[in-house]
């Protein structure tokens, strides 16, 4: 097993009275794709948003337990949240390019971090778009509006936007949910490349996708982590009856 990048310990989280995660404990190994899957409302998105503290601004929530990144509690007082979010990037379900050109979108993160040197920014744009497998398609129109790209291209642009910060961890929340099979395939290929360098946590948009890309898989049901183990084991030989029912299509 790879090194542990993220460790989640007894994590319980609720929005008001509604419990979203119930005593979740799991490890996320480095340089691998960990798939977090299960029926809607299972707490997958909440889990992702807790790993880079995007839920901080939501009022009326309660949390107990710990989330450790490289062994350090990211909810400990004095944690630099901005630095954390630079280390833990996120791609959302809907491709959401920011207003502006393709280039500006990729430059957003580095610019927010204070990078102004044009040569450095140019280098980041080329590298990020290449890593996101988008460079060849957009290299001649970097200064055109990002909104003119197709859905699949926009999603890879969002991926490039996150990669521009060279994060250590990439959180992907159903990044292919709105995309056609070809675009989906391209993104999955990209993820295989990226896991050499990044730790990836993916909420897949189908069980098939989960099975295709998972090095490790965690099955969530109504806020509870039913089981987690290496993907080839979980999808061929699930330990829990509920997991088996879900992946064989008996419910979901």
């Amino acid at each position, binding site marked *: 097993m790879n090194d542990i990048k993220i460790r989640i310990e007894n994590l319980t989280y609720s929005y008001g009275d509604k419990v979203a995660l119930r005593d979740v404990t799991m490890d996320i190994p480095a340089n691998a794709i960990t798939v977090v899957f299960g029926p809607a409302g299972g707490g997958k998105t909440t889990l992702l948003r807790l790993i*880079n503290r*995007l839920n901080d*601004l939501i*009022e009326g929530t309660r949390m107990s337990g710990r989330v450790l990144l490289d062994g350090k509690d990211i909810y400990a007082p004095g944690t630099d949240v*901005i*630095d954390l*979010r*630079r280390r833990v*990037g*996120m791609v*959302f379900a*809907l491709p*959401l390019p*920011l*207003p502006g050109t393709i280039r500006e979108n990729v430059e*957003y*993160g580095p610019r*927010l*971090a204070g990078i102004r040197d044009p040569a450095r920014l140019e280098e980041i744009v080329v590298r990020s778009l290449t890593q996101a497998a988008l460079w060849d398609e957009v290299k001649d129109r970097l200064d055109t*509006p*990002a*909104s003119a790209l197709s859905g699949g291209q926009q999603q890879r642009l969002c991926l490039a*936007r*996150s990669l521009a*910060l060279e994060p250590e961890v990439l959180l992907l929340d159903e990044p292919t949910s709105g995309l056609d099979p070809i675009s989906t395939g391209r993104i999955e290929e990209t993820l295989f490349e990226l896991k050499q360098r990044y730790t990836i946590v993916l909420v897949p948009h189908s069980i098939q996708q989960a099975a295709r890309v998972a090095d490790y898989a965690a099955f969530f049901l109504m806020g509870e982590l039913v089981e987690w183990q290496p993907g080839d084991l979980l999808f061929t030989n699930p330990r829990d009856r509920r997991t088996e029912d879900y992946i064989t299509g008996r419910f979901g």
Partner: protein
Amino acid sequence: MNRRYLVQRVGFALLGLAALLVVVPILLVVGTIIARGAAAVNWEFLTAMPRDGMKAGGILPAIVGTLLLTLGTALAAIPVGVGGAIYLAEYARDTWLTRLIRLAIINLAGIPSVVYGLFGLGLFVLFLQFGTSILAGSLTLAIMTLPVIISTAEEALRAVPTEFRTVILSLGGTRWQAVRYVVLPQAMPGIITGVILGLLRAAGETAPILFTVAAFYLPRLPRSPFDPTMALPYHLYVISTQVPGMPEEIKYGTALVLLALVLSMNVVATLIRSYYRRRREW
């Protein structure tokens, strides 16, 4: 003919009539003012001082006064109004304090303008000793304008999808950076609309400037923010009711200039707004 079609036709006719009724008074007002006032408006009217007890000469000090008052109002009301709106839309949590602020805004909007005038007289002219001055008048108008600016700007900010803010945060940006680089530019058309609506109202008001800045007859241009000045709405009021034997076309000419000023500000606002809207991409 089918009965339901008949009902529909009658319905549309009535609705159309209602829509037409909105247009008629505007056309009548504008038409009358142009017809009776256009003859009075010439170069001298726009650029000269009033003479002969305002029965001759021009209305330059009133035009300049109204422009200065609008500028002063903008300078005071825009930073406070837009700043307050950003706070309410982006930062404020739902506490008793924010609820109090919202209540205050709603109530400010409901206060009659003459009360603002008296308030301005008490606070700015007398207590703070600004005297009857452009400064006092601008501040009074600014307070009257604030609720319009704050509520429209807040609405415009809230209309920007939350996801943009989330994306900026996820890229290691602060909330302020999200506001500064994404939310504010996206909300700009709506904010500008609110600002212009507020300023237009301020430019045409008489009561708030009555006690705080307006001079009955002052045939010279103001030299400092502490000078009083003539202003178009008040001048119109004065020559229409306080000066016997005032030639009709001067009254209508003054009204025409005020109307043209306000409408041209409106046009400028529309241009700015459509410029920003074209750059928006969602």
